[in-house]
């Protein structure tokens, strides 16, 4: 029982370790940034209007601003 509880605590501590959380934020940022660039590139490549792609690209661009804020917010919270 005791070792099982200890094992669960160890798993939880690994899962919520600051480097792991920062890594997840970074990975999401990189993925979203790549998708936003690729999508906006597709929309602009042949000069024709593609409303669907443009809408997706615009939302992804907003999403990367969100992730930029999240990275800044997580960075300032470490020792407060």
């Amino acid at each position, binding site marked *: 029982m005791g070792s099982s509880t200890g094992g669960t605590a160890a798993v*939880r*501590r690994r*899962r*919520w*370790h*600051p*480097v792991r*959380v*920062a*890594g997840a*934020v*970074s990975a999401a*940022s*990189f993925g*979203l*940034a*790549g998708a*936003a*660039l690729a*999508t*906006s*590139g597709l*929309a*602009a490549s042949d000069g024709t209007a593609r409303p669907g792609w443009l809408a997706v*690209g615009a939302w*992804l*661009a*907003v*999403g*990367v*601003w*969100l*992730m*930029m*804020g*999240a*990275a*800044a*917010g*997580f*960075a*300032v*919270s*470490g*020792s*407060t």
Partner: protein
Amino acid sequence: MLSSPVWRGTPALAFDAGLAVGGMITATVLVVAGSLLRAPLPEPARWALVGTALAVVLLKEAGVLSITLPEARRLVPESVFRFGRHLGPLQFGIEMGTGARTYLPSGLPYAAGAAVLLLASVPAALAAGVGFGLGRALMTTASLRYSPDGGTGSGWNEQWQRNQRRLALLTGSALVVSLLAATVASAR
């Protein structure tokens, strides 16, 4: 403070919502001030200013530059909790989420702030503000999950101090990549 029972359940959600609202307040102020600052500046000049701010902050984070950026050297007072079980955490979150009412141990928000001030549209600025709040909420959640006996107890802070360089690199690179992608994608 984070070990208090108030950081469980719906009060914790109120705190997180406050963080997002606080971030949006700062973003709104920046984008309004930015609308005045942008008028006389050509776009390349704005890009140059944001790039300079980013370079200065990154050099500071890397320990190359030793400068002190302005911050409110105080903690949000515990008296905010007089407003009750939900409104207290909400106000605490709003004050902390603005980034202007307590310590800022990293310079990264200044780079994000410069980008919002000089480059962001209104939806992008609000998204950055919400993201700032979510990032701070993520820290609270993660530290409580990491060491439930007290989020700011020795465990979390000790790990943060031990991995400070790696954390600066990860959060710094996430900010730089997002900033570049956001500005390029928004400009097309």
